[in-house]
């Protein structure tokens, strides 16, 4: 399967074509084609994953001792034969001048992991959508687009060279455009789709130039080659810095990093399953995946091994705080989740920036499950609980009684996101923070902890507003059908246990072992598990939940709140803090919360809407203004110039037209005179 992995992206691509042409004629309008195709790809991806693990094991069996070291040893020439190489197959796609460009596959741990995640999430989304999108006017088209979306992402994942990666990248952008604008009758949706496409495309300038620069620096598009070049001592450092910066711009655009994150919340205009797919497995993680793929360039360009500061880590850190702060003031449940994604992507990018490759990729892995779970849960709420609304304050509340499965899975997802041990989010976040702390990036570890606090707090608020209190909507809330709840349960299981793939204190470090490339890979440090840090982080999270419970639950009548603390794990955790509410009240309410909930959050939201977004909008408006100006220039100056020329010609023509008596003989006279003169000239100047 590893050698034939090209089938994996091919199947959804064919499914796209099949649904497009035959979907309408199928009994279930094409959804069955999509589901069967994705299920097949999922199975194939699992097979590939197993085979990769076997490959690594086989290798380690034959190189006892070396294999264990391989991860932590520097890549050097002597060891070339002693590391597991990725499976790379490539055929010539096109040739231009002396350059050949391939298309093919590069399968290694990272790719296999991504294949698994993408196909799993996509499969669940496909199943979920049969119920969620039932009766939609463009049901068939929706499934076609989902297939294409998955295919594009898989093309990107298996890409052996940056060019194919770019192709997949752009196709992913196209599909998100199509899906965000799925209900294109409404202007707001198409605006969001346009914004998403244009913002990411702005980032693509960076990617495009970065690809070009790395190509000319390394002389190849091959990812392995680029990484090898970047890590070789002879690499041109200037080119690497510029290249890494450009690629970073690409990541910023695609993965919703500050300051290009504004499209992500707007992208909520698409159907909820699409949001889940975009935020968990495809679109936005493409950026992080790119960072992980050509990590050598970043490592070498930003000197990540030296610690301190670098643009990548800074951008990630800023994004963590910005995203988390913004999540507080949203009333739309999907927007809370969207900002939460922004913030979590910040963790991943920061993780890459601080040298925590494994942590970042691991966080990508775990985040995919719980964020998909949360989005699908929100979709379930809106589908069955709140009459297709996403407004937490107006149309939700108290839903835990009506939708128990949705409630419990959502709660698990929130806890995983908040980072409560031993759920998935805890392990991956901790890995990033530990690496940051031990790799010379202490400041960023602190930022990560602050982010964790905020995350826990806003998720508490979100859960409270949605599921607790009184039902404020107008429909008859009920539990969602099986097609919706089953994916939720599956994802919940993954959210609980996925973290164990790399839980150091439990002796489980399989994730790093199988996923981390050994070939052409920088010497990242492997952090030792820091119980102090983990404990601190856990404490922070729990206290944040406590604060959250205190703040939001308290606003309701006391009996609801008191009853809750008896029954609810989360609330009970915060109960200890609530006892001391009198002397903490001023501190929390007056300083931190008022600060965060009030000025800071509002200010950043204001800045987001009025400055950053305004910059985007302003750029658009300015472009329009410039365009108007340019057009005026074009019409009034350039064109007028030409017209004026023509007029002058006409005027001189008028002068000359007096010569045109219209009489034949006059013309003949002139002609003969001219002939005489020319002949004379010929005689003289012969």
């Amino acid at each position, binding site marked *: 399967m590893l050698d034939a992995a090209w089938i994996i992206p091919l199947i959804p691509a064919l499914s796209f074509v099949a649904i497009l042409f035959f979907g309408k004629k199928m009994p279930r309008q094409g959804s069955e084609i999509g589901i069967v195709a994705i299920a097949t790809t999922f199975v194939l991806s699992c097979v590939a994953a197993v085979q990769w693990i076997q490959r690594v094991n086989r290798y380690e069996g034959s190189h006892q001792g070396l294999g264990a070291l391989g991860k932590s040893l520097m890549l050097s020439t002597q060891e070339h034969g002693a590391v597991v190489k990725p499976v790379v197959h490539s055929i010539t796609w096109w040739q231009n001048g002396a350059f050949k460009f391939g298309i093919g596959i590069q399968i290694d741990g990272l790719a296999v992991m991504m294949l698994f995640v993408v196909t799993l999430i996509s499969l669940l989304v496909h199943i979920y959508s049969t119920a969620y999108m039932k009766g939609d006017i463009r049901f068939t088209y929706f499934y076609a687009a989902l297939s294409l979306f998955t295919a594009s992402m898989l093309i990107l994942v298996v890409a052996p060279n940056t060019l194919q990666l770019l192709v997949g990248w752009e196709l992913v952008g196209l599909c998100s455009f199509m899906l965000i604008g799925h209900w294109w009758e409404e202007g707001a949706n198409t605006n969001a789709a346009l914004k998403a496409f244009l913002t990411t495309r702005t980032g693509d300038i960076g990617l495009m130039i970065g690809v070009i620069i790395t190509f000319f620096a390394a002389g190849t598009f091959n990812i392995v080659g680029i990484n090898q070049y970047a890590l070789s001592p002879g690499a041109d450092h200037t080119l690497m810095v510029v290249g890494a910066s450009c690629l970073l711009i690409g990541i910023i655009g695609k993965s919703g990093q500050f300051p290009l994150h504004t499209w992500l919340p707007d992208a909520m205009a698409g159907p909820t399953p699409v949001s889940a797919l975009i935020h968990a497995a495809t679109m936005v993680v493409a950026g992080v995946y790119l960072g992980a793929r050509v990590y050598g360039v970043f490592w070498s360009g930003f000197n990540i091994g030296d610690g301190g500061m670098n643009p990548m880590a800074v951008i990630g850190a800023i994004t963590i705080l910005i995203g988390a702060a913004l999540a507080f003031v949203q009333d739309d449940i999907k927007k809370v989740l969207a900002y939460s994604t922004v913030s979590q992507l910040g963790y991943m990018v920061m993780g890459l920036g601080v040298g925590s490759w494994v942590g970042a990729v691991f966080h990508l892995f775990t985040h995919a499950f719980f964020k998909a779970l949360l989005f699908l849960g929100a979709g379930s709420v809106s589908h069955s609980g709140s009459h297709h609304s996403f407004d937490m304050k107006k149309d939700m509340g108290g839903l835990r009684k009506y939708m128990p499965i949705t409630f419990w899975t959502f709660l698990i997802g929130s806890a995983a996101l908040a980072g409560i041990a031993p759920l998935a989010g805890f392990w991956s976040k901790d890995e990033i923070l530990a690496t940051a702390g031990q790799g010379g990036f202490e400041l960023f570890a602190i930022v990560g902890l602050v982010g964790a606090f905020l995350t826990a707090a806003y998720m508490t608020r979100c859960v409270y507003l949605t599921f607790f209190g009184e039902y404020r909507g107008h429909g008859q809330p009920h539990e969602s059908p099986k097609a919706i709840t089953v994916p939720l349960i599956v994802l919940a299981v993954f959210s609980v246990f996925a973290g164990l793939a790399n839980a150091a204190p439990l002796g489980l470090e399989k994730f790093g072992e199988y996923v981390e490339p050994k070939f052409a890979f920088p010497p990242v440090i492997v952090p030792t598990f820091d119980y102090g840090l983990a404990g601190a982080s856990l404490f922070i999270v729990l206290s944040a939940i406590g604060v959250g419970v205190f703040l939001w639950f308290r606003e309701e009548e006391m009996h609801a709140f008191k009853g809750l603390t008896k029954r609810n794990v989360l609330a009970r955790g915060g109960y200890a803090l609530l006892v001391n509410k009198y002397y903490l009240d001023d501190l929390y309410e007056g300083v931190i919360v008022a600060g965060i909930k009030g000025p800071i959050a509002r200010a950043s939201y204001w800045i987001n809407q009025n400055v950053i977004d305004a910059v985007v909008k302003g750029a658009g408006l300015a472009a329009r203004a410039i365009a108007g100006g340019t057009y005026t220039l074009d019409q009034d100056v350039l064109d007028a110039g030409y017209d004026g020329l023509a007029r002058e010609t006409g005027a001189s023509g008028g002068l000359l037209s007096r010569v045109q008596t219209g009489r034949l*003989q*006059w013309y003949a*006279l002139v002609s*003969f*005179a001219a*002939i*005489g003169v020319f*002949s*004379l000239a010929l*005689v003289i100047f012969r």
Partner: protein
Amino acid sequence: MIAQNIAFWIIAVAMGFAAIGVVRTRNIVHAALYLVVVLAGVAAQYILLGAEFVAWVQVLIYIGAVVILFLFGIMLTRAPMEGDSDLDNDQRFPAAVAALFLLGVLVVLLLDAFGGTKIKLDAAVLATGKTAVVGDAIFRQYVVPFEVVSMLLLAALVGAVVIARRD
């Protein structure tokens, strides 16, 4: 040679006056008659140059046909038969200047180019003027242009009818 030279000059002078007569006379019929003189003179010059066949064609077509055609034209357009001062237009003077200027240029050019060149009227020259030789050339070497000219004549015939037809 001298006889021929004398003949040339006599004919040439006659032609010159007749030509000026064509463009200067006030009587349009006189102009046609002057034209006959010029055309006959040209035919005579042809004979001097040994182009016998062309000379006779000249006489037949020009004097026999074209001049008659002109006379018809004069009659059909009811041109005034007697002297009429209004035959010239108002650009007589510039026209004369242009023509003289052209003549001057041409003469200078010719004197410069063919200053001492002479024509020897020997048997070879006379041979080229033979009807047989000319016919041979027309129907062998120049048969395609000949056909084209035939077509042209036909077209001119049709064209003249179409144009002049009263509809």
